[in-house]
């Protein structure tokens, strides 16, 4: 198996983008990443596109071919293009498939992209499309919503560990604090604990400011064999590990409602592959689709003890400059959550950090970064570890 490096990255701006279509967004990200890598289209061997629900959001399937076509990679050069779907973990899985393609030796230069266009449908339709990531026949039919499922995780976490609404709010406050310095972020404005707690209740105990927004956006990275990465860039970022795991589709079938066993397993696989442990990681982008999700993630990835994610966040341990900076991009909460793009966006953030190009969000001396991308209420988890050093 070959070592793999990232040689180019690009995020589009994230937010409500009524003037841009699904295909506009992916082409923008893809072309940006190609330019960043300093390559030409003919060099590309294959592409993988993470997309959760083009069918429901823009009534478009066959996403792989569409994107290859509008990127100028279909007609004449016929680059193979594959859509990858695992709900909100689609982006992370597209990246993983790209890594497989390069590591295997079959492909050299590969684009891994992710995209979602969520605002072309009314919000209730978008929520309904997202609910398809849960078990439609045994959760959705009962009136379950995604905030509702994560609210049930939060309720039990509070009951078992004494986590408070204020601690949940601190996750959103910290992520907005980081997001204000991210030029692509959907919400670039600090918020207070009080404003989170005063925002409307969506699914008790989660307020609207505990929830990530509906977002349009796309992200792309260019992958290459590590042996030739220096031909394209002075600052290749090396893929040290990729870990993926599955769990039950329905929340009610989990071993423990407050633990994402898929995160545990994907994290364990990634740590083992990289021969690292949590203390080796300098910063991490976790899947904070809801504030409680970040608390579970930092526990399940081993950055804090189980049950102590809330208090650790409240004590500032996850802020930039602290022990383990979490979601320097602003996370899903402040940067936005175009579901298919998120897993790739997380990798772009880590690459910018490890290159030292993250501006006011920069984590000083960052050498090793991790991404953590979740599908549904935890039925899929993908964890990657990246390093400046091969």
């Amino acid at each position, binding site marked *: 198996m070959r070592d793999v490096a990232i040689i180019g990255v690009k995020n589009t701006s994230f937010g409500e983008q009524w003037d841009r279509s699904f295909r506009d967004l992916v082409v923008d990200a893809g072309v940006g990443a190609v330019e960043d890598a300093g390559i030409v289209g003919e060099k590309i061997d294959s592409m993988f596109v993470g997309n959760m629900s083009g069918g429901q959001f823009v009534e478009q399937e066959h996403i792989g071919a569409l994107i290859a076509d509008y990127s100028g990679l279909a007609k004449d050069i016929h680059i193979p293009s594959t859509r990858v779907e695992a709900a909100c973990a689609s982006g992370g899985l597209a990246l993983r498939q790209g890594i497989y393609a390069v590591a295997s030796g079959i492909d050299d230069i590969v684009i891994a992209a992710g995209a979602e266009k969520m605002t072309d449908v009314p919000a209730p339709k978008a929520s309904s499309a997202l*609910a398809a990531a849960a078990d439609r*026949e045994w*959760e959705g039919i*009962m009136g379950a*919503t995604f905030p509702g499922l994560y609210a049930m995780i939060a*309720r039990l976490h509070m009951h078992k560990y004494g986590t408070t609404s204020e601690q949940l709010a601190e996750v959103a406050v910290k992520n907005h604090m980081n997001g204000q310095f991210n030029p692509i972020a959907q919400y670039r404005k600090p918020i207070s604990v009080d404003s989170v707690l005063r925002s409307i209740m*969506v699914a*008790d105990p989660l307020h609207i400011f505990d929830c990530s927004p509906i977002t349009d956006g796309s992200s792309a990275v260019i992958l290459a064999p590590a042996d030739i990465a220096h031909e394209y860039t002075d600052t290749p970022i090396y893929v040290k590990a990729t870990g993926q795991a599955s769990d039950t589709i329905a929340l*009610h079938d989990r071993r423990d409602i407050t633990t994402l066993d898929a995160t545990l397993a994907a994290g364990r696989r990634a740590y083992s592959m990289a021969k690292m442990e949590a203390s080796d990681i300098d910063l991490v982008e976790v899947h904070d689709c809801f504030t409680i999700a970040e608390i579970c993630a930092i526990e399940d990835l081993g950055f804090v003890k189980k049950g102590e994610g809330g208090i650790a966040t409240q004590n500032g341990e996850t802020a930039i400059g602290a022990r383990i900076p979490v979601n320097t991009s602003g996370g899903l909460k402040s940067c936005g959550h175009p579901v298919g793009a998120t897993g790739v966006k997380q990798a772009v953030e880590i690459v910018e950090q490890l290159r030292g190009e993250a501006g006011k969000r920069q984590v000083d001396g960052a050498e090793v970064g991790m991404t953590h991308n979740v599908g549904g209420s935890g039925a899929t988890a993908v964890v990657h570890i990246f390093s400046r050093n091969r």
Partner: protein
Amino acid sequence: MSVARFWRNQIARYNLVGTKCKKCGEHFYPPRNMCPACRRDGQIEDFKFNGHGEVLTFTIIHTAAEGFENQTPYVLGIIKLQEGPSLTCQIICEPESVYIGMKVKPVFRKLGQDGERGMIYYGNKFIPEQC
């Protein structure tokens, strides 16, 4: 949801009939046709649950799922049945009165319908045991 898709699970939904693996003794609701532990060696048979259980966790939903808009706020919970498995279901009670560990029992109720003229779905919701 199409008529056939709902009808297929009608007995399970109406009568709380799930399955049981005779080999390892594990109970499943919602029903599974393959035991995750024994897989191909498992022996699956129907099993009717007694319906008694307790609230493992819950939420009070204020922003409804599509089709549930006129029910807000409604209580949604994960109920752990006495025989072992857990399910997601609405709990009919005052939102302030629900708590983790509350004993509940099932009642037959309308779950929803497809628009004005579409199929009506029935199934179980849960109510407090002392009710």
